[in-house]
């Protein structure tokens, strides 16, 4: 049944990419859940995460380090730290002064931030594609042979494992820790949380930092998976992750995960069906359709209009 294996293969590929979309989508959904704004610059943070990872990996390679574990560790750590700083600064500089008031104003500011960051990276790193050799080559086959089985690369396994760990960490943090509880309180009712003595500024900054760090994880993983980066990749990844967040129900973290996986699979099958060049159209159409027919997404709560 080569047909079936073909579809299974698409499913696995879709889930791999989808899980990284989910990581980025969490950043959108958490920020939206708390302050109700679309952080348009989030995709750029992801892109910067990829760049930092590439810089770290290249630096280590130049220093002669060639075992996988330390390279991975440094790449993840460096990338997460730097993007966290970005997440915090973006919020502090471009969004905090605009809090409250018209919804479109922070969105325009966020678009400006996105353009700014993309061009900053383009100026300092130039806009050429940068490629690194695969750090984790090789794959294994589930089934009899490559034709009648599903090929899974070690990189895909790594993506699954790391994504799973990151999400586990996040859900533990949200459900168990004091700050996580404060986050949930803020998502429920920001004003009330503030009145109850929660430092909401700090919590909002924290969600930006967490979102940015998770985007960095996705940035490292996708950078290693594709092996190529350029300053433009944040835009598309951002839109797709936003689609994932909306698909799952914006504001809901499990929704973002579900939406990411669904979008990844939809894209894989869409590309299979219509050709690779229409992969992005699949994502955009899905976004439009979801917003039109079920703006609350799969797991989102309906928003009651306050009169």
């Amino acid at each position, binding site marked *: 049944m080569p047909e079936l294996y073909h579809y299974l293969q698409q499913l696995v590929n879709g889930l791999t990419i989808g899980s990284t979309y989910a990581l980025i989508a969490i950043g959108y959904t958490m920020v939206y859940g708390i302050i109700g704004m679309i952080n348009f610059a989030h995709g750029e943070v992801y892109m910067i995460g990829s760049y930092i990872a590439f810089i770290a990996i290249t630096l280590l390679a130049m220093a002669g380090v060639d075992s996988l574990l330390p390279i991975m560790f440094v790449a993840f750590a460096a990338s997460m730290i*730097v993007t966290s700083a970005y997440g915090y600064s973006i919020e502090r500089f471009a969004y905090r002064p605009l809090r409250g008031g018209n919804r479109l*104003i922070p969105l325009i500011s966020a678009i400006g931030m996105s353009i700014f960051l993309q061009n900053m990276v383009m100026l300092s790193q130039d806009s050429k594609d940068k490629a690194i050799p695969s750090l984790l080559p090789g794959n294994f086959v589930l089934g009899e042979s490559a034709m009648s089985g599903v090929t899974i690369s070690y990189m895909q396994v790594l993506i699954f494992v790391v994504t799973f760990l990151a999400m586990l960490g996040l859900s533990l943090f949200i459900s168990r820790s004091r700050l996580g509880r404060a986050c949930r309180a803020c998502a429920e009712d920001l004003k009330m949380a503030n009145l109850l003595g929660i430092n909401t500024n700090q919590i909002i900054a924290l969600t930006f930092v967490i979102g940015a760090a998770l985007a960095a994880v996705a940035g490292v993983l996708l950078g290693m998976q594709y092996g190529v980066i350029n300053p433009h990749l944040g835009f598309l990844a951002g839109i797709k992750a936003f689609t994932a967040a909306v698909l799952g129900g914006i504001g809901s973290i499990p929704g973002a995960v579900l939406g990411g996986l669904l979008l990844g699979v939809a894209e894989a099958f869409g590309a299979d069906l219509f050709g690779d060049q229409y992969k992005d159209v699949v994502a955009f*159409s899905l976004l439009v359709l979801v917003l*039109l027919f079920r703006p609350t997404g799969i797991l989102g709560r309906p928003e009651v209009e306050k009169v």
Partner: protein
Amino acid sequence: MSRNLKTALFSTLLLLLISYPILGLKLSVIGIGLQVEGADARTLWTIGLAAVAMFTWQLLRDRLPGAGRLAAMTPSVPGQVKHWLTLPSTQRWIILALVMLALVWPFFGSRAAVDIATLILIYVMLGIGLNIVVGLAGLLDLGYVGFYAVGAYTYALLAEYAGFGFWLALPIAGLMAATFGCLLGFPVLRLRGDYLAIVTLGFGEIIRILLRNLTDITGGPNGISQIPKPTLFGLSFDRRAPEGLETFHGFFGIPYDSTYKVIFLYLIALLLVLLALFVINRLMRMPIGRAWEALREDEIACRSLGLNPTIVKLSAFTLGATFAGFAGSFFAARQGLVTPESFTFIESAMILAIVVLGGMGSQLGIILAAVVMVLLQEMREFNEYRMLIFGLTMIVMMIWRPQGLLPMQRPHLELKS
């Protein structure tokens, strides 16, 4: 003091973290591999100085006299002048003066200056159109460039396959863009503001991707070339007229000069802009214009007063799209070539920046902003930094003056006529 010290250290660390790894280290392709190089000394010095400045400023923030009032000090335009500048009547006179200047411009400006002015006029037109949607109706449309593309490709395709001339294609292009605006708008306008922004962005991108991939019809990434230039009552401005046409210089018996063509294009653009200005000025005083602004202010109140929000939004969306359609077909005629890459999101962002910078709802603001934006684009030394400046401008404007640099006061209405 110790708290300030902590903040200062934190801010400085943050600054270093966001600047050094991305700006101070550069990935370079060496042979087939990658290497990291340090940036040039100037960049490193800048980062260092910025860090020191940040540290001292945060440390001494409370002690600096009037540091907090810095923002209040910078715009030193006296209140009366400001008031005068934002009066609708003043702005109308300035626009009139600008139109006069625009009319005589081709007779004094060089060929290149006229060409740049034409480009400015295209952006003025786009800005006025988007201003209806964003500034008046308060609907953030991030896919505006899609309608521009529809207009441009309508003319290009009509010329390529049906041999239509510019003047015949112009209204069709406007109509086509309006139809797209209406069709796309109808389902999406029920969405809340920020969702609407993202969906329109999606539509804009879908249009571009389709144009790029429907190679059989649109020529794919290469686009459509050799789009005919407009004619003056059947007189062509080319050196040798296509079959069935006469040339402008031949008809008047003057020597051929390619400048005529540039000036003629400029005048068409000016005509279109004047038309747009006329329409928008009427619209703002018409019931539908008031309804747009009311909708921007409070949709719920609008509904409770019997205004159908979908129709009000749709009219703004459709009309905005129509303007983009006109601008698009003119763009196609001027370039003689359309490719999907002329219609990226960045183009939408640039038009949005013009609207935001100029002051939502203010015609004069948009004209000035378009002038600034296009000149910035044309200046060689700035070109690299152009988008960087756009981005920063949008943020700063939102924080500092969300109403734009040159907003317009409400018109004064006489109660007794």
